[in-house]
């Protein structure tokens, strides 16, 4: 029997009798990270990485939560479970499951690029690797994050020079904090005030509570017109087209997401700019991560499942797909509408 299977509730470990990122309530849930499509309310008890505690307190308040430090191991029904950094967002983890000498790893979402707001991805040797595939097409090759951050900084500077607020759409949890920290590291904060939509304030607080160094990010609603004209305002994509934007008068808008790699994705959102900055692995990243596990079996989930399975199979890897209910499932080209899934 496989160590991880797919049942109606999600990824399931029959030997240990627990689920990983279930999309329907179960008795015991292990969470890879706190994005809404992976961490859902209603289960009996939760196990997650220690670093995600503060964020989960915001996202799923009141759950019964146990946490593990990265690398710490617990045994449940004879199955060893440990969590290892996935580099996706603060507290994101790969779930390593070991039973009778066989090791399976569920990746959750991951990226290989450095990110000042979370622990770097760690390759785990395993027999079977369950991998995401959000950006599993060769068109997705990320540039150095710093180069993208510099572009954002240049765009902001130009808007500020023209007395125009810069509204940068990005996912409220993960991307917003990463951009804030990266802009600070790039020395770009002299341009003006860094601000955000109210929906991000509590998450910024959670990051700080978890010990992540963030620059000051003001609540945009507390600022007046003069200050706003030189500000960079981080806003969730769901704020696009809402009356909330009226306070900025004339503004420039952009979206920071891996989806922005493709011109059409930006153009049909009618945005001024798109910055391809992703918290997911790109094509080379996915292939490198898969190779580094040494897994003899690869199971592809949410994203480009048929493409990745065929590609890996042609490369001589024993690959198959799982039809999960995580975001981006089956529709590689569709943009997540809200901040449920991080691009």
């Amino acid at each position, binding site marked *: 029997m496989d160590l991880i299977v797919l049942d109606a509730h999600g990824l399931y470990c029959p030997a240990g009798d627990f689920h990983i990122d279930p999309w329907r309530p179960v008795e015991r849930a292990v969470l890879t990270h706190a994005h809404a499509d992976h961490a859902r309310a209603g289960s009996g008890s939760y196990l997650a990485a220690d670093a995600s505690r503060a964020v989960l307190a915001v996202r799923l308040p009141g759950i019964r939560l146990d946490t593990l430090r990265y690398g710490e191991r617990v045994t449940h029904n004879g199955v060893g479970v440990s969590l290892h950094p996935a580099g996706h967002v603060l507290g994101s983890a790969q779930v390593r499951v070991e039973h009778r000498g066989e090791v399976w790893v569920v990746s959750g979402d991951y990226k290989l690029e450095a990110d000042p707001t979370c622990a770097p991805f760690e390759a785990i040797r395993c027999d079977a690797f369950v991998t995401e595939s959000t950006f599993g*097409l*060769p*068109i*997705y*090759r990320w540039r150095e994050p710093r180069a993208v951050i510099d572009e954002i900084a240049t765009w902001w500077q130009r808007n500020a020079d023209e007395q125009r607020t810069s509204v940068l759409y990005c996912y409220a949890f993960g991307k917003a904090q990463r951009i804030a920290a990266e802009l600070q590291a790039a020395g770009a904060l002299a341009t003006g005030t860094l601000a955000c939509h109210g929906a991000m304030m509590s998450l910024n607080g959670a990051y700080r509570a978890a010990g992540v160094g963030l620059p000051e990010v003001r609540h945009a609603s507390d600022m007046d017109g003069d200050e706003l004209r030189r500000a960079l305002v981080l806003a969730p994509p769901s704020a696009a087209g809402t009356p909330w934007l009226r306070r900025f008068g004339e503004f420039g808008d952009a979206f920071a997401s891996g989806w922005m*790699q*493709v*011109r*059409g*994705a930006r*153009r*049909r959102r*009618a945005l*001024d*700019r798109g910055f391809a900055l992703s918290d997911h692995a790109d094509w080379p990243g996915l292939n490198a991560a898969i190779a580094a596990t040494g897994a003899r079996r690869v199971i592809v989930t949410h994203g480009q499942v048929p*493409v990745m399975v*065929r*590609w890996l199979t*042609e490369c001589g890897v024993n690959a198959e797909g799982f039809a999960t209910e995580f975001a981006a499932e089956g*529709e*590689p*080209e*569709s943009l997540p509408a809200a901040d449920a899934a991080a691009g």
Partner: protein
Amino acid sequence: MEAFARLYAELDETTSTRAKLAALKRYFNAVPADDAAWAAYFLAGGRPRMAVPSKLMRETATAAAGLPPWLFEECHLAVGDFAETVAHVLPPLVAPTQAGLAQWMRERVLPLRGLASETVAASLRDDWQQLDWQGRFLFGKLCSGNLRVGVSRSLVTRALAELASIDSKLVAQRLIGYTGADRTPTGDEFRALLAPPGQHERAGGRPYPFFLARPLVDPVATLGSPDDWLVEWKWDGIRAQLVRRDAATYVWSRGDELITERFPEVQALGDTLPDGTVLDGEIVALDGGDVAPFSLLATRIGRKRLSPKILAAAPVAYVAYDILEADGIDLRDVAQFARRERLAAVAAPLDPVRLRLSPLVERTDWDAYAELRLQSRSRGVEGFMLKRRDAAYGVGRTGNAWWKWKVDPMTVDAVVVYAQRGHGRRASLYTDYTFAVWDARSGTRTLTPFAKAYSGLSDEEIAAVDRIVRKTTIEKFGPVRSVTPTLVFELAFEGIQRSARHKSGIAVRFPRIVRWRTDKGVDEADTIEALQALLR
């Protein structure tokens, strides 16, 4: 190439005309004239011949990226644009080059045309190593001869005119012939575009601003007596001014675009006009001597290169209805009826096949006109034009001298049965729909497709329909999906004909979506009988 790439990105990233104009002026000011010459060529719509066939480009890129062909196709489907797909999949840049646009065109792109495949492939691999993402994207477009930039020719014209502080009509005139397919524009030519006006350019080929008719909304009787009006059919063609001055002919479209080379028949006609003549009228296609439906003319629109086959299949004529200049004198303040008489006199000695006078329709009362107007469709016209007898030729869509009294389009409520992905900006959205109506001719009531349409919805509606298409998909056939019938749209079209080629037995012209009938269920959609009733 970098400066041009930056300009391209700037134009691509804004919809503001002001911002585009500023970016154009900045660019033209900053780069060497050689590069500016090529940029002006592309921006004004110039298309060099294809230097590298897309198949060769695809195979070379697929091999350079180490991908199987099917995976390149998957990528192309996701991106929608071929050159962009190539740029995305190639391995990272090795060593950037400082070469400008002109050098790239002259030394790297144009010489590739007609070379052996292996030579081209080797050259491409070498070129790609020197270009970053944006450079590769543009290089691919340059090689395909298919670079389109998000600016109109008139905006480029305006930018150049403002830069040189000269009249934009003068620049438009100087751009005549500048954008031909086999040209290699030079820095000197670019400087000539911006030069101060010379004497011989005083009159030049410049047209007059077009006078545009307003749609008639109020009842026709509010115009007073029909005796005060000249009534003509409203021709369904391309509005154009035919200018003959200084022994040269110019054909201008309404967008101040010179289309002389696209309509050699009209040019030939113009060559027979006396010097100092400007006519206003409509270019129409001919079918056996009669004015043909617009669909025939449409086969020539956008074509820069005219094959003998196209010229034979869709010959054109010029339907003249006004004269704006005669003997070099501006006639625009002369009364409509007097201009009309002058036009008839000028036209009399000319080829009656190529030059047709738009006939005056004469009835005694508006009711008679209204009845006659019902024949518009069968006559292949869009309704009537009403022109006040004593009025001058105005400017733009102003005044109350010219009215268009169009027939209403035909409409039916139809059901979406297939959806297809769009292109370019909408490559990842289902934007093209196949529509069906109920059909009980076979005994059982089924949906029979009869039209495809893709325009008429807002971005929000397209996104909403896209979600429904994905949710209700029955089967996928490449980029096409069949869907469970749930979506009902009101579809308008300009004409309807019997067709043996279509299962429905009919073909409609210019189908377009009027609105989404969210208030109607699929069962309430129209029937094939309703469509057949529209066939006379």
